[in-house]
């Protein structure tokens, strides 16, 4: 029977949506910060893969989830440093360098995984769900929505922190100016490059965290290409969210909903629709979202342009 429209189904769907949105929330909020400083990082996919792999490897070696998450963030930032060096210091084209980062991330993680881990077949412990007093006891939704692990809950914290950083701190004010009027920041005596490095490192650290969630909070194994395009979808989320962290949180949730729907509808044998139609849903919706939002009116003015002091 079709049990799509029951309240229980809806609650489960929303809970799954939040879980599936988590890597997107981290990566897209990171990318919002990076793009607000004028740096477009299409290397997110490779960066997330590094986070996923290094998080897995560190947790595999130590048995510790926090250490794994830290390793994921560090790996993301290491890739961020490479990206920042080539795009900010060398002033190379951001798309070209991003493409290289993706190749490196895909190649390096698959190479190391096949060399060291594929034969072990062993996974790692993943973060356990935590109940939140009162919220978890709500009827219907409490059980489905508030039985997540701490990494999922922390998406809210990261969103709040990103808002404070961007809109309530002088660092954020300057950072946004770097994306719109780098010349003004330069004339005011601050280093455009330093702010861009900072923004890229925050962004890639969050992307690494998003990747690490995949192996430490979602599946307990690393698989080659485990991110399956989430790094690219995060780029679309940023556009759809009009470069706002809160927007990125909710748009990510929307995409999480597409993922969750895809999984739930695949499990409905009565629906005579090929499963590939659901697989394609998030990618199709990304294109639709770009058409709906269109324009680049909200984009930072100097997005994608290296800053030249002359």
């Amino acid at each position, binding site marked *: 029977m079709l049990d799509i429209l029951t309240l229980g189904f809806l609650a489960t769907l929303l809970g799954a949506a939040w879980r599936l949105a988590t890597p997107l929330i981290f990566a897209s909020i990171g990318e919002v910060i990076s793009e607000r400083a004028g740096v477009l990082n299409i290397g997110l996919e490779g960066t997330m893969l590094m986070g996923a792999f290094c998080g897995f490897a560190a947790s595999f070696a130590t048995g510790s989830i926090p250490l794994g998450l830290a390793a994921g963030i560090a790996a993301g930032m290491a890739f961020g440093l490479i990206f920042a060096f080539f795009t900010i210091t060398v002033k190379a084209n951001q798309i070209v360098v991003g493409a290289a980062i*993706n*190749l490196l991330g895909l190649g390096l993680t698959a190479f190391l995984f096949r060399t060291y881990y594929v034969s072990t077949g062993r996974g790692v412990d993943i973060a356990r769900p935590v109940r939140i007093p009162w919220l978890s006891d709500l009827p219907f939704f409490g059980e489905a929505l508030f039985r997540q692990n701490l990494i999922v809950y922390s998406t809210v914290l990261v969103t709040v922190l990103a808002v404070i950083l961007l809109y309530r701190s002088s660092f954020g004010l300057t950072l946004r100016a770097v994306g719109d009027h780098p010349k003004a920041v330069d004339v005011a005596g601050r280093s455009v490059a330093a702010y861009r490095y900072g923004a890229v490192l925050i962004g890639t650290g969050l992307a690494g965290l998003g990747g690490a969630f995949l192996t430490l909070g979602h599946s307990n194994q690393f698989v080659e290409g485990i991110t399956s395009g989430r790094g690219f979808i995060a780029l679309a989320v940023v556009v759809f969210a009009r470069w706002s962290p809160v927007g990125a949180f909710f748009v990510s949730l929307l995409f999480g909903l597409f993922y969750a729907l895809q999984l739930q509808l695949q499990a409905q044998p009565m629906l005579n629709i090929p499963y590939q139609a659901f697989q394609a849903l998030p990618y199709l919706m990304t294109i639709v979202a770009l058409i709906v939002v269109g324009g680049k009116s909200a984009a930072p003015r100097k997005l994608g342009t290296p800053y030249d002091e002359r």
Partner: protein
Amino acid sequence: MTMTQIERDGRGAAAVPILRLVGRAVARAAVAVALPAAAVAIALACGAVLLALNGFDGADVVNVMILGVFQDFRSVTEILLKAVPLILIGAGLCVAFRCNMWNIGAEGQLYAGAVSATLIGISFEGLSPWLYVPAVLVAGALGGAIWGGIAGFLKVRFQASEIVTTIMLNYIALIGTSWLVTGPMRDARAAYPQSARLFREAWVPDLIAGTRLHIGILVAVALALVLYVFLYRSSAGYAVRVVGINPHAARYAGMNAGRNMMAAMCISGGMAGLAGAFEVAGVTHRLYQNISPGYGFEGIAVALLAGNNPLGAILSGGLFAVLRSGSELMQITSQVPQVLVSIIQGIVILSVVAFAAIRIWPRRRS
């Protein structure tokens, strides 16, 4: 006024002795080859270090990956076979990148081409090969051009970033192909998801009997030459490049920026689609879910290494074919994961952009 300035603005060029002009052209060509060569050398060195650090033999990078693939005539034809899609895609992407259209979707466009070519190739039995083979190839090119054109249209009409849309169209093409070969186009007799076999009259003829190498390699080189002439010796190609450098200036000069962007996307998509058609009609003779090992993404590196010049794409496409063959050989002979080739490609790109920056720096100081 320095020599380079004279050369750049053209005035006084006649006064420079012809010998010196020739010498400078040779020097420029040498630089154009030497820098990419150095980039590849750096990437191979990094690959060797990576291998050595992880318990493999670092020398394999030279012995197996580069030299090992030239053992006999047959393996050389296999390299050329791999070069066909790489040259086609790389040369096509040069046009897109020159127009500042960041087409990351050649992989999807290849699949769109492979699907269209298969559709034609399994539908018309008994057609003359003289008609059938070109029809299949044109269908592939059209399929790819349409797939690329969608992203171009979304960019021109809705300002939707072509970077994101081409990537999403990659996924949709791959998923669509998977649906076709497991569903409507599936060969019911086969255990493995695949389409029916293309009619023999639709097969691309072999170039050298007894090998898998087909005439696609000639087509690829010829089309790269055509695209070079188009980009640098035709006014239409000039418009494409001007739009890439400055769309506003192009508009003032009466060029239609949107139309040129569409053209760039359709040409690069068409080349990728043609590559897909050659894969099904020349190599596999059936459509599979994973007909490309990532040629579309590799083509990006081919174009960048070539400095976005279609002529260079012939060389860099051949080089990446060597690397791909070599990495396959390494996996067989010494169990080195084949993905090493992606790492080397990534480092090649980074080295190329670093060298480009070094060449610009002295000019900036003056």
